[in-house]
């Protein structure tokens, strides 16, 4: 087992990848940076006791992001009356994937981001989310298919626009 890095090295190595993941999930870069920084703040006082600091910080950052997003959604729900938003996050963006991700249900989006951006195994995603591995596989399958479809649609639309121009 490799030596545990010191905190500064760990911070330097993990801040950006975690921020990318949380940005992909929330669609809000400032919010992603906030929760990742907060996760590091919680890790620092217990640094000496963390066996797997990367997994620990990732879990805390995702917990915070999910919690904040749910709170924001509840607030949105209250201010908009009875209208329930199916999925969170940003509207269409200049990057096609953001719009495609925003269209996914929360759990599917989380599974896809963890799988593709964080290289987290299905077993770890199951442990993180408290779901069965079969459920995670189902989320991944459906999420991947939906993303691929959306991305393909965007390509088709783009190519049609080019042809008609």
């Amino acid at each position, binding site marked *: 087992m490799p030596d545990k890095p010191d*905190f*500064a090295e760990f*911070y*330097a190595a993990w*801040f*950006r990848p975690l*921020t*990318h993941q949380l*940005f*992909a999930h929330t669609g809000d*870069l400032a919010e992603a*940076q906030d929760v990742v*920084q907060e996760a*590091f*703040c*919680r890790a*620092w*006082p*217990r640094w*000496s*006791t*963390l066996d797997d600091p990367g997994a620990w910080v990732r*879990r*805390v950052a*995702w*917990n*915070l992001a*999910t*919690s904040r997003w749910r709170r924001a959604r509840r607030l949105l729900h209250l201010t908009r009356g009875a209208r329930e938003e199916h999925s969170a996050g940003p509207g269409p963006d*200049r*990057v*096609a*994937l*953001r719009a*495609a991700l925003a269209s996914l249900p929360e759990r599917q989006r989380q599974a*896809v981001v963890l799988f*593709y*951006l964080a290289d987290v195994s299905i077993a770890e995603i199951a*442990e*993180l*989310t*408290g*779901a069965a591995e079969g459920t995670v596989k189902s989320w991944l399958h459906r999420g*991947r*298919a939906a*993303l*691929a479809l959306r*991305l*393909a649609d965007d*390509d*088709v639309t783009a190519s049609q626009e080019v042809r008609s121009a």
Partner: protein
Amino acid sequence: MLDLPPTDRVRDAFAELTGSVDHLVRPPGVGSVRETVRRRRQRRLGATAAAAVAVAGVIGLAQLPPLDRPAVDLADPPPAATTLAPSVLLPPFAPPTAAAGQSRPSATPTAPGGGEPAYSAPPPTQPVGTTNGPPPCTSTVTASAKGTELVISAGPVCAGDEIAVSWVTYETQPDGSQKLFASDRHLLTAARPRVTATLRESPKCVGPWYVLRADPPIPSTLPADAVEPFPSGAIVASEDGEICLS
């Protein structure tokens, strides 16, 4: 692009997405982490010290003899048939077996991290014209945690005294409430004024932990909107937890 297998197409899109924002990511830095933690510790220390002052003030008031009663001279107590109870000059939590003139400890909470005692209760006020007894014995209870390793100590513990302390951990639930996960109780005595313990925390959803004194009721569930789950004077130390994902 359309000919790519879906998974590769998705991977490419993720790479494109992260590449598009990477130059905008601004890590606040390790210094900011340390400064935030230091500030929070100071704030917690201040909050706990304020609570300790309030508790000590209440105890001090309770120790004052009532104005409409004659003062009790400890050096020459009146006959038993006419005397007031000795506990008039003792803190209200003194057990019946305590000897007159031997004050009870006042467990004073301090902040985690082994900081300095926030406050020591002043000695009981002696009525004018009475003989001073021996100096009161006061105890300070402190707790510090490093990760899950917890040290609770009192100093000094007065002879014959026992100070009940306990630690408790909670597991965060999906609805934001906290479910009791583990707890343990210890007695600090003059012979054993310090105990070490390991906080047992949920492996999935780490909630807050508390070190308590004086055996307050421990709720099995803390509602999500609970602000003060324990009487402030009962909390020796505490730390917030994280929020559960699922």
